[in-house]
């Protein structure tokens, strides 16, 4: 029996039992969908009623919650900066080999939006994120140049450009759960900006990434003569 057939059978079984008490399998399905915000209204009411009365159901809900927490923790393990450097360099060489079309394009030096300006004017923050900023722009350079100067384009970044990398473990990166940076004024500012952007639990670098994206898109809109907002 194929996976699809097993899944179809499981779905049918679940639907047939819906009118009766939840089986353990169905309870797991309901709790799982609840965690993903994918419960239908009727299912949600039924599950909440069950959680009101069943200690075991509540315990199972906690077990599934713990699974998600552990998975997020696993996904938040930092990747050493040197490793990312090595991968980027290898990709850059491949990109440079592929890029045969010379172009005048380069990383934009455009004014940034108000939110971006507030975040990026601070010189110390610039230092802190300078390594992070350099990642990726080498790719653009390699594409733009379309030459074999990969060893120049992909020269290692200045190691002393980083001031906030305890233990040389590298900065946290997008998708991580955040960093153990000390609370600072600039950290507070970034947190405030993050909230304004709807990034309630984002790390500083995730906020900076979002600001970079906004900056880029705002520049694109200006270039295209489109109204902003």
């Amino acid at each position: 029996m194929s996976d699809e057939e097993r899944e179809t059978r499981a779905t049918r079984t679940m639907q047939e039992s819906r009118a009766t008490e939840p089986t353990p399998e169905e309870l797991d399905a309901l709790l799982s969908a609840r965690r993903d915000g994918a419960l239908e209204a009727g299912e949600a009411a039924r599950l909440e009623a069950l959680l009101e009365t069943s200690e075991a159901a509540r315990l199972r809900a906690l077990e599934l919650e713990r699974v998600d927490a552990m998975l997020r923790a696993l996904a938040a393990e930092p990747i050493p900066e040197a490793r990312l450097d090595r991968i980027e360099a290898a990709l850059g060489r491949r990109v440079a080999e592929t890029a045969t079309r010379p172009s005048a394009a380069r990383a934009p030096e455009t004014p940034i939006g108000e939110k971006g300006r507030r975040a990026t004017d601070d010189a110390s923050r610039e230092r802190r994120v300078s390594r992070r900023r350099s990642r990726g722009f080498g790719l653009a350079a390699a594409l733009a140049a379309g030459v074999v100067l990969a060893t120049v384009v992909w020269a290692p970044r200045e190691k002393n450009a980083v001031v906030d990398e305890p233990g040389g473990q590298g900065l946290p990166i997008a998708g991580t759960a955040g960093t153990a940076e000390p609370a600072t004024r600039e950290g507070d500012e970034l947190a405030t900006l993050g909230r304004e952007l709807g990034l309630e639990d984002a790390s500083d670098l995730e906020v900076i990434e979002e600001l970079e994206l906004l900056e880029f898109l705002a520049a694109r809109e200006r270039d295209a003569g489109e109204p902003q907002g």
Partner: protein
Amino acid sequence: MQPIDPDVRLMLAFRDGDESAFGLLYRRWSARLLRYLERIVREPAVAEELLQDAFMRVLDARERYAPEARFSTWLFHIARNLALNELARARSRHPHLSTDEPADRGVPGPPQLVLVASTPAPDEATDARREHARFAAALAELPERQQTALWLAVVEGQSYEEIAGVLGSSVQSVKNLVHRARANLADRMGGTARTVPAAEAKR
């Protein structure tokens, strides 16, 4: 129509000739994709190669790119296909290995997990690391589709519809995969509440 997904807008900018958009896309997605690929192929060096391959595919698709889904859906779809091809190649090299049981492939996990296999010290940090490693091993035991579905739902926050786009399956299938993955992991991590609630619900 103006695409809503900012990454799609980046990709369109790249298609239209803005090279810096490719760098931004790489910066935004490379680490996340690498973590996913490591979990699937379980060999760090291979995951690194596949990450490069995925972005080379993005580069190759530049001129013909047409947004049909969120950029992340497209990117993970590319990465997963590359990973499955790699697993198939590994299986052909070692026919006794199964794609559905990656833990049996005999390849090492990410290096940071190897460190915690040493003799445990009686402190909470060590206990946490051991638990972490145990969870990673349990995750690796899951079939690839369950791993991918759960990873995209929990870590990437993708909707069932988006995950269905990555897996090439139905939304209901994704829903089942995610719940089975969660339940399997809870059970393997020592879950005890699974068999009781139906009886309790009668009360």
